[in-house]
């Protein structure tokens, strides 16, 4: 007799999703991963909007990654119209990306993953059984938030970053305050890896095909995508290399790269850019064993290391901003023309690509967004199946718990993923 085990709704992750395991007796026939967020159809909503509106609207695709969506959209529009930005603007934008990395990883690790490690339901119970750990996590997260709020003018859907420049540049006092706050959480960020380097209660998974942006040293200047064991391809040509299919059971479209299920995110980045600077670099080297060439079980550890890296990097960016001093910058409005622009950033969950076309009036005629979760979806489905098969015969409860944990390794962001290209 066939039976179906359903995990719905998936919890402790962004958005609405569910998993179904179809079994024939003990045998796992197939696993269905559904992303069922109500579609908000951003790519369609953007059509007919003016270029300046695009970044302001598209950042609302997802709150967790609104900063990186906004930055990527700005870069794409600027790419279309050939706008150059100053160093202060670029540094401020990157500072916000790093802040996003800090806040997002801290939220995911301390509020959403930690309950698994301690065997509790969620944050409320954490507050009772491990108040200090929760507070540590919240303190790290808060610094990320403070940076975003100060630099972005608003915590979610930041406004201060705009086409060509900034609404206002940060004052020395603000920067100094942020530096102090970062410094305060640096030790905790450094220690985080210990907490999230725990063995998983399930067997090995397939080895991922990691995909990242290049060059890694310039978070705002991605030129190409590279995949392990493949020649990298220019960002501009992403459409020829990434194909999307609509699934009949999910509102997100499945993306394949070179016909493979790509894996993006923290683990991918550490695998493909092993030469991290600073303390985080050293930390990474000490964990190479658990990370390099390993499966997604290592992703939470990779996130912890990245969180530390982002903290260090944010400090360096702030130092440089203090050195440059606040500038009142005149941002020239780009003159619209018929053009297409494309840009990509490493979001906390991995490669994020935005591409837009505009007519001669600067009105959007094409919008395309490829999100990390859409990219990861295939690999996640594949791993879920592998895991379910690997646990055939085990108690259903144990299996569903394992599947949920695997999903939280991927840290999917479903709101983003259900908005996909117009062909």
């Amino acid at each position, binding site marked *: 007799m066939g039976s179906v085990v359903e995990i719905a709704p998936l919890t402790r992750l962004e958005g609405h999703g569910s998993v179904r395991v179809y079994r024939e007796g003990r045998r796992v026939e197939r696993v269905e991963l559904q992303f069922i967020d109500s579609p908000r159809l951003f790519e369609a909503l953007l059509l*007919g909007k003016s270029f300046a509106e695009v970044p302001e609207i598209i950042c609302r695709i997802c709150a967790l990654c609104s900063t990186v969506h906004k930055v990527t959209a700005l870069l794409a529009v600027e790419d279309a119209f050939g706008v150059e930005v100053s160093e202060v603007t670029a540094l401020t934008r990157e500072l916000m990306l790093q802040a996003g990395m800090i806040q997002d990883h801290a939220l995911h690790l301390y509020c959403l993953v930690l309950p698994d490690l301690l065997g509790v339901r969620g944050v409320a119970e954490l507050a009772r059984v491990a108040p200090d750990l929760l507070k540590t996590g919240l303190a790290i997260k808060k610094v990320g938030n403070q940076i975003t709020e100060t630099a972005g003018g608003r915590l979610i859907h930041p*406004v201060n970053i705009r086409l060509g420049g900034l609404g206002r540049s940060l004052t020395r006092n603000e920067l100094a305050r942020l530096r102090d706050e970062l410094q305060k959480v640096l030790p905790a960020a450094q220690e985080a890896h210990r907490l999230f380097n725990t063995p998983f209660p399930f067997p090995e998974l397939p080895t991922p095909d990691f995909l990242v942006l290049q060059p890694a040293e310039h978070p705002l200047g991605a030129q190409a995508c590279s995949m392990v064991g493949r020649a990298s391809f220019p960002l501009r040509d992403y459409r020829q290399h990434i194909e999307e299919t609509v699934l009949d059971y999910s509102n997100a479209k499945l993306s394949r790269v070179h016909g493979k299920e790509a894996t993006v995110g923290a683990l991918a980045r550490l695998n493909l850019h092993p030469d991290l600077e600073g303390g985080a670099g050293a930390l990474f080297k000490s964990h190479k064993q658990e990370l390099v060439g390993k499966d997604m079980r290592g992703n939470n550890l990779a996130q912890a290391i990245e969180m530390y890296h982002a903290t260090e990097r944010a400090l360096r960016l702030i130092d440089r901003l203090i050195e440059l001093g606040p500038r009142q910058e005149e941002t020239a409005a780009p003159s619209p023309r018929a053009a297409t622009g494309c840009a990509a950033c490493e979001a906390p969950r991995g490669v994020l690509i935005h591409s837009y076309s505009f007519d001669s009036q600067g009105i959007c005629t094409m919008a395309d967004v490829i999100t990390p979760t859409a990219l990861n979806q295939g690999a996640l489905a594949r791993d879920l199946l592998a895991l379910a098969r690997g646990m055939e015969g085990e108690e259903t409860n144990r299996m569903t718990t394992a599947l949920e944990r695997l999903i939280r390794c991927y840290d999917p962001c479903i709101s983003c993923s259900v908005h996909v290209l117009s062909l």
Partner: protein
Amino acid sequence: MRRMKLAITGLTACSGCQLTLLNCEDELPELLGHCELVYFPLAESGNVLDVQFDAAIVEGAVSTPKDLELLFKLRNASTHLVAYGTCALFGGVAAMNNRVSTRRELLRSVFGAGEKLPESFPPVPLANFVSVDAAVTGCPPEKQEIMELVVALAAGTLPPARSYPVCTECRSHENLCLLLEKRELCLGPVVQGGCNARCPATGIVCEGCRGPVREANVAQELELLLERGFGRDEIERRMSRFKPEWDYGKRS
């Protein structure tokens, strides 16, 4: 004190409102001592819906049969239903094209002509289907305002309402008026304040993320912007970014 039972969830939305609650890092630990998060899939596992909630805090617009089903369940199970955020109150960004294109056109343009389309209708506010007891506006909402609400609920009341526009706070903070001095398309006069005029404070116009203020003189704002050289199209596009329906003839 008895701990209040809360449901916190999202419909058609970006999770920003729920995240705002999680962003109250300073207050969160104490708050968690005052409430039971019975249903909060974003941050809790083991959620149940078949209890009586003191309050259901719902983010997002309603745009699918599933949204509606969850909304009805929560309405029936809760003493207070809180419309949390601009989408829940006005439809929000997902609804911006409600008046200009059909749902089907939008779906087709994203999912392709030949494919099976997800079941979905134009996103609308919660109040189109159920009665709403309290509201927190904003895209995203202000941390302070959601904390005010949750704390007031715990104290057996609701927070007192503010009803001034963004301009009032903007001027009081001595920002440069972008509408007057830079002739930019600022919606401050007709938009509900309470955000400390965040955007004008950084030199960027109010895009209207908090929806209309009680006495919005929409007709005059429209005239004002037309006078400043903006096209009717552009103005309407901007106005409808967070709320598709405005009465452009309304003066008080």
